[in-house]
């Protein structure tokens, strides 16, 4: 590999990073509000909420599967976290219930995909429909209000002037990154996504690891649901409507491939930051919702097409 090729690969693999820098320069030039610490905090908090789901979903995609139910899992767990405050006064218990229910959804998805050998797209679409029904049943199509005042502390409490969610997600991100790159199970996840049958031959229990990734994804969707609902102190049945668009847009922008066996959580997080900046820019510039949706849809379609092109060249 000569220097030119190295440079080419390097520049191709770090597109999100450049976009991030360009966006920061662009935004700070158009608006004086951008550099206000309050605004930066809002951007980071948004990134933390979407980033939590994205970290989980990245693992599922690296393992070569797909989860369409992340948005509804997030909505459902948020509804549980808020709704169960009527019965339990402890916030930890409520969050625990939400995370466990997220993991249960993941377990269900994982069992469908591995033990029943269903296609993950359509199996998780089934879960999507079912969770949608459960959400309607639980919330009666209305927003639930959080009763416990302390619940707001999760998103408003500060450590060294930085809000808790940012600390939590930064910590989980680093943990997941090292887990994915340094641990044995992390290596296995990459191996399964790269080639399932060969991984099986090497004695990796592919089913167990796939179920693990789905449960991991469910748990992170739940964390995201908790963070979002604690910020607005309520849970709306419409929470997860656009989560999928932004999260998958970011994952493919970050360079995680739909084929599996390739990618990383840090890349995903940088892409999430890019999209959060973009979201912030939309807010500052006052761009109406339809145009925002064109951008989200466009990014998703464009990135998945580019992902395919990249692999065609590699073969």
């Amino acid at each position, binding site marked *: 590999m000569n220097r030119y090729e190295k440079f080419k690969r390097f520049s191709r693999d770090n597109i999100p990073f450049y976009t991030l820098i360009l966006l920061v320069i662009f935004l700070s030039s158009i608006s004086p509000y951008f550099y206000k610490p309050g605004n930066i905090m809002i951007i980071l908090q948004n990134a933390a909420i979407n980033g939590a789901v994205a970290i989980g979903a990245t693992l599922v995609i690296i393992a070569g599967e*797909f989860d*369409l139910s992340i948005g509804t899992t997030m909505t459902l767990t948020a509804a549980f976290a808020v709704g169960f405050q009527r019965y339990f006064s402890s916030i930890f218990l409520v969050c625990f219930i939400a995370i466990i229910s997220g993991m249960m959804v993941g377990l269900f998805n994982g069992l*469908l995909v591995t033990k*029943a*050998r*269903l*296609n993950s*797209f*359509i*199996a998780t*679409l*089934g*879960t999507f*429909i*079912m969770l*949608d*029904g*459960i959400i*309607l*049943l639980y919330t009666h199509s209305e927003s639930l209000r959080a009763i416990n005042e302390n619940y707001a502390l999760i998103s408003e409490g500060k450590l060294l002037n930085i809000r808790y969610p940012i600390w939590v997600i930064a910590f989980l991100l680093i943990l997941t990154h090292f887990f994915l790159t340094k641990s044995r199970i992390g290596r296995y996840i990459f191996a399964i996504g790269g080639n399932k049958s060969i991984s099986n031959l090497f004695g990796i229990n592919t089913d167990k690891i796939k179920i693990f990734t789905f449960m991991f994804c469910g748990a992170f969707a739940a964390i995201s649901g908790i963070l979002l609902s604690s910020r607005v102190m309520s849970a709306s049945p419409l929470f997860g409507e*656009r989560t*999928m*668009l932004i999260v*998958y*847009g970011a994952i*493919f922008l970050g360079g995680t491939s*739909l084929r599996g066996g390739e990618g990383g959580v840090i890349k995903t997080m940088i892409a999430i930051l890019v999209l959060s900046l973009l979201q912030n820019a939309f807010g500052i510039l006052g761009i109406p*919702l*339809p*145009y*925002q*949706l*064109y951008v*989200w*849809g*466009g*990014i*998703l*379609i464009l990135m*998945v*097409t580019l*992902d*395919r*092109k990249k692999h*065609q060249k590699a073969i």
Partner: protein
Amino acid sequence: MITEERTITINRRKSSLIYFVTNYNSLFFLILLVIVSSIISNAFFSFTNITNLLKTSVVYGIMAFGFTLCIISGSIDLSLGYNLAITAVIATIFVRDYNYIWAVIMCLIVGTLVGLVNGFFIGILGANSVIVTLGMTSVLYALGVQTSGGNMILGDVRSPFSLIGRGKIYNIPYQIFIFILLFFILNILLNKTRFGKYIYAVGGDEAISWVAGIKTGNVRLTVFIIAGFCAAVAGMIFASRNESAVISGGAYWQNQFDAVTAVVVGGGSISGGRGSLVKTLLGILILAFLRNLLNLIGISFEFQQIFKALVLIIAMLFNNLFIRGKLQSNE
């Protein structure tokens, strides 16, 4: 995957009875459902109940036809629901501002164009169908908000356009005729033409059909155009039946879900190369009867949705079981 396809074709030649039983197992389920429904309610076999039941299933049924072609060619179209929404909005706007002919033409054109864009990304550029159509839902929603301003659009009740959803011949609604006509046209396309065989081939094994000289990209593109057209026809009927259209609301996802469920319950497999319109028709009828039955028992809407999702998952498990069982018996 390839061996699976082969065993099925071998089975098809071996014994037509076994082939019939394993392939049309949904028919027995349908018969069972009819028997149960007729025992539970006396009103079930009345003419009005049956036509009403068919009428409610026309919209997602037509979408299910398009989805069947997609699934046979090995792709998924998640944008059908919002395609229905956007065509319904456009048809209603044109009925209000111009006349019914423009409404019909424009909504069919828009729906087909949406299919064309999907097909371009999926067929020609080779992107993953689920993600592209997922992105498309957002684009279509935005387009709908822009054209309608986010408000409910009221059509013209006196316009002949409302006849599509409300007119009747011999007490049978027009929309059922449209449904049956579309079924026959697509069935001929799928079973009697070379293009139909190509769809099966592309879904069965894309690489081999490409080697055999089929332009797989163009086949995919055409399939998505047809699916878009089907969604547009469904949107036209939807708009004309309601005489109004609004872009937000869960009705569109509901129809999308129902279309997917109908296809899967009928025995279509997502891995491609399998399924037929007759099976989808059986699936549509099963879903319609099931809905009717649940309504007769008095089960709430939310529980119905959970129940439908369970039916979808069980049907997938059942399909998998049959295919794997056949594979083992052959070995």
